[in-house]
């Protein structure tokens, strides 16, 4: 009798206790799962352009921007820029990706850290507003490329321009890229600029206050200011800030020894292995080309 009663109570009570325990455990887990699966309702995504712009870094950045366009919770994008630019083609790709994001009705705001020059400046042109730090370097609207190498005798080619073409051809190619770069600057910032097309072509970099004064940038401000403005443009009162992981290093630096002496070989992150294709660059600053930087440490 006792056994039966005990068993019956244990059975019903047991089930009740199990249900209560399950609900309690669920109550603990639900907020965690909800947080993981839903995230905040609205977010401002921060996409970092923080190194030389190469094809591989743009792969990652394009993916970040595509994600921002596709994720309905991302309402605005801030470009955190600290780059001297990169290859012309990669810079143009990034420009187009930013432009598509703007066209998708997502406010894009740029925040320049130390440098937002050349190809990096190109990339942020479609931004609604460009913030710079007081000491940021902004501008350098121009293109550069190596001159064609003299014909190499020990080779058979199928045509005279197979390897590199003529100086005049290279000049025309670079000029074409310059026209498109300057054309893009005038398209996006023509109404704000207080300097002429020719002055833009001068490829000068400007420190923050100069850049704001001449219209190459809009405001002196920090990344927080940029985030706040982006959120405001998206009509957000409360929002989360989602920092996208910056792309991995694009260049390769090798350290080695040669005959006991230290040798440094730094490979251009925008060229091709073993081939100097005269890749046009949109870069501010001195460039170490592949064939230029093999040196003895004591030289």
């Amino acid at each position, binding site marked *: 009798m006792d056994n039966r009663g005990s068993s019956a109570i244990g059975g019903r009570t047991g089930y009740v206790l199990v249900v209560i*325990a*399950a609900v309690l455990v669920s109550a603990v887990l639900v907020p965690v799962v909800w947080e993981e699966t839903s995230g905040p309702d609205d977010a401002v995504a921060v996409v970092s352009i923080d190194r030389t712009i190469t094809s591989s870094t743009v792969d990652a950045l394009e993916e970040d921007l595509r994600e921002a366009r596709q994720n309905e919770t991302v309402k605005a994008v801030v470009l955190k820029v600290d780059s001297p630019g990169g290859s012309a083609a990669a810079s143009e790709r990034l420009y187009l990706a930013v432009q598509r994001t703007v*066209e*998708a009705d997502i406010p894009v705001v740029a925040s320049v850290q130390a440098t937002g020059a050349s190809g990096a400046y190109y990339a942020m042109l479609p931004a609604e507003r460009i913030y710079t730090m007081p000491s940021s370097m902004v501008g350098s609207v121009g293109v550069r490329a190596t001159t064609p190498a003299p014909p190499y005798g020990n080779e058979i080619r199928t045509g005279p321009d197979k390897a590199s073409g*003529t100086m005049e051809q290279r000049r025309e190619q670079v000029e074409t890229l310059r026209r498109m770069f300057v054309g893009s600057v005038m398209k996006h910032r023509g109404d704000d600029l207080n300097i002429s097309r020719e002055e833009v072509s001068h490829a000068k970099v400007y420190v923050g206050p100069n850049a704001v004064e001449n219209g190459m940038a809009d405001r002196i401000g920090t990344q927080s200011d940029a985030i706040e403005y982006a959120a405001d443009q998206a009509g957000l009162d409360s929002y989360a800030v989602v920092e996208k992981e910056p792309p991995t290093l694009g260049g390769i630096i090798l350290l080695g020894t040669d005959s006991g002496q230290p040798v440094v070989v730094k490979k251009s992150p925008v060229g091709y292995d073993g081939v100097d294709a005269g890749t046009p660059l949109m870069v501010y600053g001195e460039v170490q080309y592949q064939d230029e*930087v093999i040196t003895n440490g004591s*030289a």
Partner: protein
Amino acid sequence: MAARDVLKQVGLFVVIVAVVVGGTAVAGTIGTSTDAPSTPDVQNEQFEPSNALPPTDDGTGSITMDADAESKTVLVDVGHENGISESDIQPLLNTLVDNGHEIRFFTRQDRDLNESLRSADAYLVANPRQRYTGEQIAGVAAFERAGGRVLFLSEPAETQGLGGLLIRRIEQVDNVDSAIGSTFGLAVQSGYVYNLQENQNNYKSVYATPAGSSDLTDGVDRVVLREASPLVAPDDATTLQSLDGTTLSTTRNGGEYTLAAHTGNVTAVGDTDFLNAENAYVADNEAFIGNLADFLVSGDKAEGAPQPPQPEGGAPGSGPTGPTPQPPQRAP
């Protein structure tokens, strides 16, 4: 409690937790759909060929000479560490040879420039990096006074990077010994000129237009100079000048700069690149080169100039002299 009951209760627990937590997860993903919307179109008129492509120059034409002169000898100086090679001025040299004139080179092995000048009718010197001796300067001056033609070419100092990644030294290599130019009242300014408004596909490729009418600018509307140094020359000596709005790299001052000048029997041009095969047929460069060839062979140099130095106790004065000092002639 039977083992069966325990199993049922554990099962119930798992089902309830799975339903609640799983449902939450599903609900959480609603609203973060990653369905790909179509990629927004972008319009970029600045990439259209009509806006992006620069005008091209077909680079055709031929270099011709008008001068109907008898065969003359042109001495080309490559003995002063000149920053130029024979191939750099090949179109001019070929034109002279095609028209029956002789080219000779003064090399480092030819110790006496004045002796070489004596048998020449014209003297061409480009980018002399080694200084002239006083005797050589006097010799070239005497050569010019005697009617010999002098073509003086220069271009901006070159910047050369020495060393490598860790230790790097930048050196400026001056291309011009200023003493030789100053003998004729000519000097080369430091830096290069550029024009961002109107150029031949690069800011350094400036247009030079005639400053007036002369034999040197006959048939020339505009010449393209790839990297030119402005010249300092007497006011009336300017032959070619840059377009208004051209800027000097060192001072960043805009204006019209003298890029070719002519005084006496001397012509100076602040560029050498226009003479190479790739640039010789751009714009009206071929006409200008033909005129320079005519200039070189149109002189009437007195024989034997510059004279060798007089032996001690000989005629007064020493060093090379021309036979009869005469005022500079306007030529051609």
